[in-house]
C-alpha cells in the first residue's frame, strides 16, 4: 500500500477510535490535527503577513503620490518624456529629443534672449557666464539640455551657434 494512503488510513482509524471513546467530540491538539488545523493556520498567517507587507510598501511610496498631487505638471512631463524620448541617429551622432517642462521651456527662452546679445558664432563659456549672472535657474544642467537637444551646436572651430528652428520647436 502506498505510504500516503497508509497514513490517511491510520489517521482515519485514530479519528474513529477517538470518536468512539470520546462520545463524538475531539478537543485541543487532537482536534487541530484531525481537521488540518496546522495547514489552515499557516495559510492564514501567510495571508495576513503578505497583506501587511503590501500595505507597508504602499505606505512607504505614498510620499511620491503626494508629491505628484502637489505638482501635477510632473505627471504630464513624466508621461510625455516616456513617450517621446527617442534617439535619432543622424550622421553617426546622437540627437536626443526631450519634451521640456514648462519651467525648462522658460529657461530655453531666457537662454535664447541671452544668445541674441552675442555674435552668431559665440563663446559657450560666455553664454554660461551670462546665464549665471542673469540668475537663470540651474544654468549648468540647462546648458546641457540645450546641447543635448542641439539647440546649441558647435561650429567645429571652438565656438557655438544658436539654432533658432530647433529652439522654436522645443518651446512650442
Amino acid at each position: 500500500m502506498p505510504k500516503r494512503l497508509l497514513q490517511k488510513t491510520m489517521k482515519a482509524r485514530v479519528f474513529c477510535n477517538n470518536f468512539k471513546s470520546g462520545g463524538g467530540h475531539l478537543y485541543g491538539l487532537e482536534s487541530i490535527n484531525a481537521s488540518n488545523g496546522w495547514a489552515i493556520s499557516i495559510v492564514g498567517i501567510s495571508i495576513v503577513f503578505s497583506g501587511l507587507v503590501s500595505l507597508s510598501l504602499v505606505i512607504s511610496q505614498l510620499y511620491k503620490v503626494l508629491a505628484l498631487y502637489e505638482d501635477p505638471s510632473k505627471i504630464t512631463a513624466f508621461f510625455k518624456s516616456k513617450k517621446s524620448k527617442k534617439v535619432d541617429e543622424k550622421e553617426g551622432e546622437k540627437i536626443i529629443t526631450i519634451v521640456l517642462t514648462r519651467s525648462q521651456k522658460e529657461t530655453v527662452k531666457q537662454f535664447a534672449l541671452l544668445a541674441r546679445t552675442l555674435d552668431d558664432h559665440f563663446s559657450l563659456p560666455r553664454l554660461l557666464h551670462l546665464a549665471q549672472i542673469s540668475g537663470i535657474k540651474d544654468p549648468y544642467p540647462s546648458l546641457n539640455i540645450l546641447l543635448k537637444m542641439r539647440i546649441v551646436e558647435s561650429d567645429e572651430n571652438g565656438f557655438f551657434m544658436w539654432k533658432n528652428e530647433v529652439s522654436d520647436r522645443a518651446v512650442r
Partner: protein
Amino acid sequence: MNKLCGESMRDIKEILKKSKVFGLLDADSVKRLAGMFDQWTIHPGDILTNSGDTAHTFFLLGKGTVLLAMDEGKAIVLDTPGDFMGLELLSAKGKYKTSLSVLEEGSVFALSRQGFMELIREDSAMAETIMDAWQEYLDAKAPFAKNNEGPGLLQQF
C-alpha cells in the same frame, strides 16, 4: 574621491579600452595605467580645473558632460566616455590653461599629471602609442586646440 577597486577597476579598464587615446594599448599597459586612476563623482556646477592653477591632474571621462573652456573663448563639450582631458588640451608648462566645468552628473577618472608623465617617459612604446592616438583624437575632437610648438616635448604640458 575613491581609490579604484572591484567594479570601478573593471569600469576604468573598459573605458580605457574604448578610449580613442588609450584604446590601442596592450592589456598589460591598460592594467598598469588603470591602477593610477582615482574615481571622482561629478555634479553640475563642479569646477574641476581653473585656468592658471598648477596642473596636477588629468581626467578621463567616465560618465556625464564636461565643458572645457579655453582662454580665447573657445570651448569643447566632452560627453563621450573615454574622452581624455589632459596634455595640451588642459595644461601648458605645468599650469592649467583651460577650465573644466561639469554640466551633467557623472564621474571622471583622475590621473596624476606627474605620474602620467613619468609613466610615458619610462615606457617609450606606450608613449608613442598614446601620443599618436592623442594627435588623431585632437584632429577629430578639437583641431583648433592642437599645439603648434612641436610634438615630443612632454615638459610643455
